[in-house]
């Protein structure tokens, strides 16, 4: 019989190895899943993990998916390091997208080419406003931020559906629940002709560097993390716990809202009833897979983007249902949680 025994000190090695092990477990179970579905596992795994990387177009699509995942996961990493359990990046992304869309609809053919900057700012403010509701309820009434932020995600989704079915519906849209397509001035400029990649990539690189500096170099980031790790020490040092709640949620709201804005003013070009295939939720997995570290989040958002693209490809090439993406995400999360156990525990013969 084997039993779990607490390690005297958490294993650093296991902290880094766990994401890799989790990925390996996911591949193993993916293989079993493909076998059970009567597919050739080698060919199927190839569709998931290799095909998307075989040409420039595929690579650019992976990068495109990484943008919202990385932005949301950086915001979430800041929250989780501050011990603020924000589960609502998805809602913050959606409302950011709504705010960005609202601004984009104000653009006209005469608008300046820099109008898209306003669109992105509106997105960030929208995301911050949505996150501020969670922060306010937590601060004033000690309401649990996990439940509040999660439930607000659904409220945000309904807000979007109301707008595209009602006031913002394109009058010339044959009654489809879409807004009119945005004017070119509202759109984020393309980075290379022929791909869907926009300046969003550059923005993400800047945000990534800023997040890294904030978390590992700045006194403000230090204060947040002390409040998260040791609330009594934060109080002793005079770092405000309220500041931690507000700052981490507002930062995450801004980054998620930016992700939403880059989606609607990028690949989408209009508001539709669904502007995110669950990026905000997948980013929770990304943040943990990336060990709440900006560098790790890059690696993890790459994996998660592959799963998104691979899921889409496997629908067309292998005839698998759309749920395959969610199944792979779920397997990855469960495998990670399992592997993480061994950071604090080890197996011993009883």
């Amino acid at each position, binding site marked *: 019989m084997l039993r779990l025994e607490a*390690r*005297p000190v958490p294993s650093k090695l296991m902290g880094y190895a766990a994401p890799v092990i989790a990925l390996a477990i996911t591949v193993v179970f993916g293989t079993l899943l493909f076998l059970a579905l009567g597919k050739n596992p080698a060919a199927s795994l190839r569709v998931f993990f290799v095909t998307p990387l075989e040409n420039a177009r595929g690579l650019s699509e992976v990068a495109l998916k990484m943008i919202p995942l990385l932005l949301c996961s950086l915001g979430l990493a800041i929250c989780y390091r501050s011990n603020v359990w924000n589960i609502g990046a998805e809602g913050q992304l959606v409302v950011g997208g709504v705010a960005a869309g609202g601004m984009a609809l104000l653009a006209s053919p005469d608008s300046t080419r820099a109008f898209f900057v306003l669109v992105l700012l509106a997105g960030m403010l929208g995301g911050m406003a949505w996150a501020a509701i969670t922060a306010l309820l937590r601060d004033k009434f000690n309401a649990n931020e996990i439940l509040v932020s999660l439930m607000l995600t659904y409220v945000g989704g309904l807000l979007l559906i109301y707008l595209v079915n009602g006031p913002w519906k394109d009058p010339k849209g044959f009654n489809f629940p879409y807004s009119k397509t945005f004017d070119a001035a509202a759109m984020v400029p393309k980075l290379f002709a022929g791909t869907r990649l926009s300046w969003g990539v550059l923005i993400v690189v800047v945000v990534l560097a800023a997040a890294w*500096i904030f978390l590992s*170099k*700045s*006194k*403000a980031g*230090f204060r947040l993390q*002390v409040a998260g*790790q*040791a609330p*009594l*020490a934060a*109080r*002793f*040092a*005079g770092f405000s716990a309220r500041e931690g709640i507000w700052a981490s949620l507002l930062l995450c709201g801004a980054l998620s809202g930016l992700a939403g804005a880059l989606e609607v003013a990028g690949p989408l070009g209009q508001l539709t009833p669904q502007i995110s295939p669950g990026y905000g939720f997948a980013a929770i997995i990304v943040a943990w897979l990336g060990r709440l570290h900006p560098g790790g989040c890059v690696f993890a958002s790459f994996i998660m983007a592959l799963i998104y693209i691979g899921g889409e490809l496997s629908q067309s090439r292998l005839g698998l249902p759309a749920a395959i993406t969610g199944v792979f995400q779920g397997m990855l999360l469960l495998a990670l949680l399992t592997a993480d156990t061994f950071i604090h525990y080890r197996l011993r013969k009883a």
Partner: protein
Amino acid sequence: MPELAARLQLTGISKRYPGVLANDNVSLTVAPGEIHGLIGENGAGKSTLMKVVYGAARPDSGEMRWNGAVVQPSSPAQARKLGIGMVFQHFSLFDTLTVVENVALALPGKLDRAQLARDIEAMGRRYGLPVDPSQHVYSLSVGERQRVEIIRCLLQQPSLLIMDEPTSVLTPQAVEKLFGTLHQLSSEGVAILYISHKLEEVRTLCSRATVLRGGRVTGVCNPREESVASLSRLMIGAEPPRATGVAREAGADQLIIDHLSMEPQERTGKPLHDVSLVVRKSEIVGIAGVSGNGQNELLSAISGEDARAPARSIRIGDTAIGRLPVVARRALGLAFVPEERLGRGAVPALGLDLNTLLTHDTGLTRHGLISHAAITTLARSIIERFGVKAAGPAAPAKSLSGGNLQKFIVGREVVKSPQVFVVSQPTWGVDVGAAAQIRQEIVALRDAGSAVLVVSEELEELFEICDALYVIANGRLSQRIAVRDATIEQIGELMGGAPASGAGAEVQHAAA
């Protein structure tokens, strides 16, 4: 074989935990009716050894004999069946249940409550441990709770009673009563294993003692024939130096608490009633008292962690600080060392270098970014000046032993040369050598002109370093007492404060 079988005989007990050999070939013998002291510093292996005896840990090697027969209890229940009872340092009582309900829970089988209540009272009368079986535990004082624990043990008629640091929560008077009870038990043939690091107590109570250091037995002796100095030599390998300093004329009032009354922040806290005290420049003022009598509430109000006090009720010099945040109070020259080191005084997972940022507000950052060079230099200078044993400036706070971490935290505040220095339980759980060094630093700070306030449960410590004392009991502070006029007995009486029933009244008052 000895002519009469020992009640408990341990031979060559070894127990290894990951990374540490907690017990290394330990042998110990307790005769019936003997009060045997087990002394050693924190981490010497006392608790591990007791876990082995009480069936809570299995030794890697060695033999345990009980009345001559080899046994190896595999659970506390089995140990109790053999006749081994243990009273833990931290009580294991349910607050919301009555005394009789708590006792019933620990006893096997179905019980007649009324009969059990009578048994509890009878046991209490016999051993001088009066408790009311129908009272709820939350309304009992700490001393009464300990009585319940002891009675619960005695009802199982143990022939060996293990007491783990029983006096750490008691007033001197309550300690005397406890010793009376223990002597009576021993005269009836019950063997007692008395675990402590307080050498004076062991010398008073025990006829034999085993000394542990670093998991090994360093001596077996009759403590009455030893001096505190010779015992501590066995315990730490050196004699503790005493703090020395030149007491100067105390100067102007620095820290003033002026008729401070306050409801506690937490429901389980103590309200403060009309607390007034003064600490002058170049003096050390102590606050004695059994923990849980309002010390935490008073300290939080001074440090600013609780900033609800009326502004003028707490002052540094002429500045009202009652409502100022922590950082503003630090800027006025206040430094504070809290009782809890890990998690409050320091962030466990962060390095010592980053931990300096908790209380040093200037010189360590540039444009909001942390200067790595500056925090490393500061941490290294604290480590060197105060002889902190650490792997380096980046060593995580939790990797340090309690004494070394306390030296670092005290050092972190002392290097700021604070005008007002407030320290809580400066040497709690710290080994004798480090404790002496910390006291010396506190005295040196006073000699340099700081106003120092020390809150401690250790009366001897307060008498050693303080110029004046206050006693806190039930959220009220006594008059100021000059140390040269004070006696331990007088302070002890004040620590007892209001009669025991007063504690219950306070709880109801706080809940209302």
